């Protein structure tokens, strides 16, 4: 019964989300025909650079390929520009799109290393040379670029060393066939190359999925050794970073909606059933969500815990008789109020704690605890100031010590006044942690992104993540309501 409702819900959403499809085939004979069209592409990508000089088109820049694809599917863009591999025949069939024009340019692609790194690029070139000589290179290319992997239950897996200094890989791509996550492992063309590379160096691999900007910062600040994910070699990038030898040259390709696809013909119920299966059940993708949920919970819990404690310190300093203590509290609150959470998170991770070796999760907890403390101090002040001084005096006059008077008399009354505010703060902190993906933490939101980049389906992962956030918030609120239930003081 319950599953039926969930399907119904998804169906309703699909119905809504499919509204914009047009039933015409777009015909393009050359890149000149693009004039007047809306073209979706990934921001900062080579396609972005390639099309930017053209003034006769409307260029739409998206953070991820799946976002760009959604724009095409919903009729917000006419054409999608990407390389020929990510949107292979299988994906096209699934999504109801087709390639309409092969671009004129091909882009040599490789891994990107730190600028002054001479060792790793050279080592990679050796690995590539070895693979080419052995013929392994051709096998890898053949397997991943000829779509054979699509029907496979398992993917080729080359074990790598588990001991030693890991090669830290910042991947900006979670899309087949280059690199994608399935279960607890990463697979794909680039991953196979990297595994060979790791074996040659006799070092383990540590692969993390980053936002593009965050990945570049990680590489610059030495938090990652190499950046992967189909990075095209361009002169601008070569000025800032160093590259290995290109392992492949990808052709740009234009995609448009395919009115004849099965997808647009099959029934809604069947499609939503398939969408749920594809996004949550296949390859146990729900595990991304449960793992992300756990991380979101852990980060929120410790941020709230340490934030509450730090808030006491900030509050006490703000109320202090010492001028300097009050000043510090004031500066702290002004500082926190003036900086967006994301900026603080990035600054802490890439600048302040860049060399400390603290894990991203710990840095996230610190950042959110800092935010929490500032607001919590305000709440403490509001709540405690609302309890008249006479209450303390009455307690003292009865013979309570100062500490007893605070905990027996003032505190319970302050809690009553401050708890609704505190509850709101906890809930907004829980939701605010959804930005930790920027420092490569695979939290609940990022888990949705990860599935999205693999399945190119915006709706189901987003809906699943939304429902989970909603449940979390609801649970948290219920917990607080339980705590505020009237209890006898004696």
């Amino acid at each position, binding site marked *: 019964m319950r599953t039926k409702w969930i399907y119904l819900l998804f169906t309703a959403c699909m119905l809504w989300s499919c509204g914009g499809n047009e039933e015409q085939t777009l015909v393009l004979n050359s890149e000149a025909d693009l004039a007047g069209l809306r073209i979706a592409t990934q921001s900062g990508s080579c396609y972005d650079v390639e099309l930017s000089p053209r003034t006769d088109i409307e260029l739409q820049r998206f953070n991820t390929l799946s976002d760009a694809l959604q724009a095409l599917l919903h009729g917000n863009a006419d054409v999608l520009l990407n390389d020929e591999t990510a949107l292979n025949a299988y994906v096209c069939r699934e999504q109801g799109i087709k390639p309409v024009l092969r671009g004129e340019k091909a882009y040599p692609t490789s891994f990107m290393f730190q600028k002054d790194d001479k060792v790793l690029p050279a080592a990679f070139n050796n690995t590539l040379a070895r693979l080419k000589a052995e013929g392994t290179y051709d096998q890898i290319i053949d397997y991943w670029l000829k779509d054979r992997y699509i029907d496979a239950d398992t993917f080729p897996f080359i074990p790598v060393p588990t001991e030693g200094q890991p090669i830290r890989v910042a991947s900006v791509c979670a899309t087949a066939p280059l690199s994608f996550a399935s279960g607890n492992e990463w697979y794909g063309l680039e991953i196979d190359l990297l595994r060979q590379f790791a074996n040659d160096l006799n070092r383990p691999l540590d692969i993390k999925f980053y936002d593009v900007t965050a990945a570049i910062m990680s590489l610059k600040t030495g938090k990652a050794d190499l950046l992967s994910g189909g990075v095209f070699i361009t002169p601008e990038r070569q000025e800032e970073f160093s590259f290995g030898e290109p392992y492949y040259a990808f052709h740009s390709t234009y995609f448009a909606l395919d009115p004849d696809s099965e997808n647009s013909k099959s029934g809604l119920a069947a499609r939503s059933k398939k969408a749920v299966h594809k996004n949550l059940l296949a390859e146990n993708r729900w595990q991304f969500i449960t793992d992300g949920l756990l991380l979101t919970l852990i980060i929120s819990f410790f941020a709230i815990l340490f934030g509450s404690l730090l808030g006491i310190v900030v509050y006490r300093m703000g109320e202090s008789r010492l001028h300097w203590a009050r000043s510090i509290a004031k500066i702290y609150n002004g500082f926190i109020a003036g900086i967006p959470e994301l900026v603080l998170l990035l600054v802490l991770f890439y600048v302040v704690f860049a060399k400390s070796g603290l894990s991203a999760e710990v840095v996230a907890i610190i950042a959110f605890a800092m935010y929490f403390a500032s607001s919590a101090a305000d709440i403490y002040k509001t709540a405690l100031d609302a309890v008249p001084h*006479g209450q303390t*005096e*009455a307690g003292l*006059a*009865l013979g309570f010590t100062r500490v007893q008077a605070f905990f*027996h008399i003032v505190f*319970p*009354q302050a809690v*009553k006044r401050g708890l609704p505010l505190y509850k709101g703060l906890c809930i907004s902190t829980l939701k605010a942690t959804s930005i930790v993906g920027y420092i490569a933490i695979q939290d609940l939101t990022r888990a949705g992104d990860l599935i999205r980049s693999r399945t190119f389906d915006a709706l189901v992962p987003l809906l699943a993540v939304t429902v989970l956030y909603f449940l979390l918030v609801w649970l948290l609120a219920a917990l607080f309501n339980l705590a505020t239930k009237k209890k006898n003081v*004696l």
Partner: protein
Amino acid sequence: MISVSHLSKTYQNADGSSLTVLKDINCEIQRGEVISIIGPSGTGKSTFLRALNLLDPPTSGSILVDGEDILAKGYPVHKLRQKMGMVFQSFNLFEHMTVLENVMYAPVKILQESKEQAHEEALVLLKKVGLVEKADVYPSSLSGGQKQRVAIARALAMHPEAILFDEPTSALDPTMVGEVLSVIRQLAKSGLTMLIVTHEMRFARDVSTRIFFMNEGVIYEDGTPEQIFEHPVHSATKSFVQRIQKLVFKIESDDFDYLQIHTGINQFCLKYNLTVGEHAYSLIKEVLFTHMRTIRPLTLRMTHTELSGVTTVDFMVENLDHSPLTDAARASLRPQVKDLIEEPTKRGFRIKLII
């Protein structure tokens, strides 16, 4: 029981200035005494009371309770306060507890009484103050008088040896003053040591064994109710207990501002509900411009005694040993006043018109 000597209290303001509220308080309080502390507003009555249980620690001086110096470093103040209860002007009931819990809380938490015992005692005390049927309600639903009676029961629940009452009826509607005073009256008979800061003169007179009259930060006069109310030694005490109100003008020369005098008299009469304003003003004009025209400087004083309802106008001249009035003046004034008194004073001569 309590011995206070050379107690003083000075508040340091944030701007560096300071305000001395208590100057030099000395007194001995015996067990079982019921002492009312009276005096004009702002003379440190409440500050003195709050100094006794160290809610407002004094700046200097000493307080001995049962021979122990409570200002000594490390003295367990909370132990003292357990023996010396306090009832506040603003009640300060614990708003998050029921009436019963308010009364039981301290005995259970501090005296480690069992809940059953504390519950039983609390009910007895609530019965004593007439609020046993309100045991399970929250203070917010009580009237001011009821709140203050609960506060008294709460103080009694700690079995104190003394209770300090800080203006217990000042925040109450006039209709509720009686119920609270009658509870305190009842307590006064029980032999409990009590110090009461109050503005209720009749109550102070009836209930106290002793009265402190405080003025300008010192105990100005200390005596039985009879001494203080019937035979006060100091003029300040007298004008306070008889509720004498004064209006004073100094007239240096003929250029004085007689309009200011007119306005002053009108406001004075309005304040004390007097109908003699215009009459007084015409008399003053007559004396100043006719009978005592040549006599400057002089001090003009209008007084009203609330207890007796007598209003007088005085003309005081310094360094004068005889009456400045002529017979004609006397003849003109006498029919207009209840009495005309001409008398020498320490510093000169006074003409007193009783109107």
